[in-house]
């Protein structure tokens, strides 16, 4: 057999494995590709953020404009997250547990926000609420600002992140079927009891991950928010817009310091995904193990 370092194949049979030089070559290509496109950018963010030392890094983060951006970003996420969680649960309940006409159309439409450019996601709200938009004159007459203000940022973020929780829950709830809910009904449970006691505990991990993902995307949205925000410093600046401003002002260390916060958030999100997958896979594995075990007879 081979003595090459990285070639221990997952399957033992030689008939279904490539010769070792091929394996080394494929692993090398995959490694270089991922290294260039994933690892190097990550390293670059932190390296550039710390270029001028820890003190400069800290200063960039406590700068009043940066703090304002952090505040607005958190406010946006705090509004968007609960709304999209409720939407995701409602949509998944209707789509996964019931049969109705137009279901596959609805399922396709839910992906729309993923399919359109983030620039368009912002633009549509400018067309509705902007100065030249349909509701613009009426809003201006009543002194309500949507575009170039916080409501516009919230709306654009809502649009972009709206499918995330639903997308996470629908396949999960479809795979779980309706038998447990039916069992609860037969045992006398009312509608609310069925949801809180049976459905929710079964989807909690998927829901948690959907929420974390939704949060990360809400905090990290750039294109859509950029179109509606008006880039007013300290007022309508989210974290990502703040990064852009600093970068365009050639304050690279500052831009990367703020970017490193968002990068940490992304890494936490990836970690959460692994955790949730591990939890659900562990459940599935225990079930399969018991299934394979000899069925216990009656004592």
């Amino acid at each position: 057999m081979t003595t090459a370092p990285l070639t221990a194949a997952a399957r033992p049979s030689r008939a279904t494995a490539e010769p070792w030089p091929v394996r080394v070559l494929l692993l090398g290509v995959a490694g270089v590709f991922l290294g260039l496109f994933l690892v190097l950018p990550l390293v670059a963010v932190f390296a550039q953020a710390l270029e001028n030392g820890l003190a400069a890094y800290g200063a960039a983060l406590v700068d009043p404009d940066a703090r304002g951006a952090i505040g607005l970003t958190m406010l946006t996420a705090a509004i968007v997250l609960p709304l999209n969680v409720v939407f995701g649960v409602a949509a998944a309940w209707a789509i996964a547990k019931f049969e109705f006409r137009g279901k596959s159309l609805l399922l396709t439409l839910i992906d729309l926000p993923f399919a359109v450019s983030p620039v368009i996601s912002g633009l549509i709200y400018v067309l509705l609420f902007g100065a030249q938009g349909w509701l613009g004159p009426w809003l201006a007459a009543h002194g309500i600002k949507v575009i170039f203000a916080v409501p516009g940022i919230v709306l654009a973020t809502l649009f972009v992140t709206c499918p995330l929780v639903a997308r996470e829950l629908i396949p999960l709830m479809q795979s779980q079927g309706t038998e447990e809910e039916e069992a609860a009904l037969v045992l006398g449970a009312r509608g609310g009891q069925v949801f809180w006691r049976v459905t929710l505990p079964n989807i909690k991990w998927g829901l948690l991950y959907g929420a974390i993902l939704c949060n990360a995307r809400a905090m990290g949205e750039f294109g859509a928010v950029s179109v509606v925000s008006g880039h007013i410093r300290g007022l309508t600046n989210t974290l990502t817009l703040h990064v852009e401003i600093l970068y365009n002002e050639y304050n690279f260390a500052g831009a990367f310091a703020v970017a490193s916060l968002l990068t940490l958030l992304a890494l936490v999100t990836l970690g959460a995904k692994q955790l949730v997958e591990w939890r659900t896979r562990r459940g599935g594995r225990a079930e399969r193990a018991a299934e394979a075990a000899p069925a216990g007879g009656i004592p």
Partner: protein
Amino acid sequence: MAIAALQLRKRSVLPGFGLALGFTLLYFGLVVLIPLAALVVRGMQVDSAAFLKTVTAPRALAAYRLSFGASLAAAGLNVVFGAIVAWALVRYRFPLKKVVDALVDLPFALPTAVAGIALTSLYAPTGWLGRPLAALGVPVAYTPLGVVVALTFVGLPFVVRTVQPVLEDLDAELEEAAASLGAQRWQTIRRVILPEVLPALATGFALALARALGEYGSVIFIAGNMPLKTEVVPLLIVIKLEQFDTGGAAALALVMLAASFVLLLTINLLQRWSTRRRAPLGD
């Protein structure tokens, strides 16, 4: 709402259908469908001659060429390298595999602006990769090649994540059967594995393409944004908007929206194809 819903569905004993579907439609309608409809209506309102002039202006045509060309190139790169990455993740063992697997999703989770400045700093003429590449006579940042790099980054997870589960579900017996029938390893891969993976590859390609076409954040930093040269369509829309040419922005956006729709439908058909192909035999 509840009454209409009752007629729509096959009757079920589970509660809450009317409420759930009603809220879903109301919310989705308000947040997504009505605003999108506003774009369509606004785009239509543009006088047709002006519409044509906007969407066929040389600057717009150059932007389409760059957007579609760079997106196709990036999606193509992702098909080749994404398939290799998926294969390595499913079939081989190597150190830090779990971490690598998790990291593949980074472009989903990392804000595009962050990706944009990170890639730009790497590939700029003064950057870690930009300097040696420039010395070789291959400038990346502020050229169409830079756009391809950024779009490859944002599309990277799609092919890997659509191909990976198909490879995982692939029955080892299939390959053993092929081998027992005398097929060489490369024949097994070409004639047995590739056809199985093909729908997933196509789906991944379409998903990466759709994502790349609309991409804004990661591109604008690395592209240089020179009109007629390195300006992508989403950027052109933003520029129109900043010039208070709302109609022009809406017209260009409508063209992009139409392209997105076609891709979304294609993706749907592809996904149906791949789930049909993956349906278990028997039963």
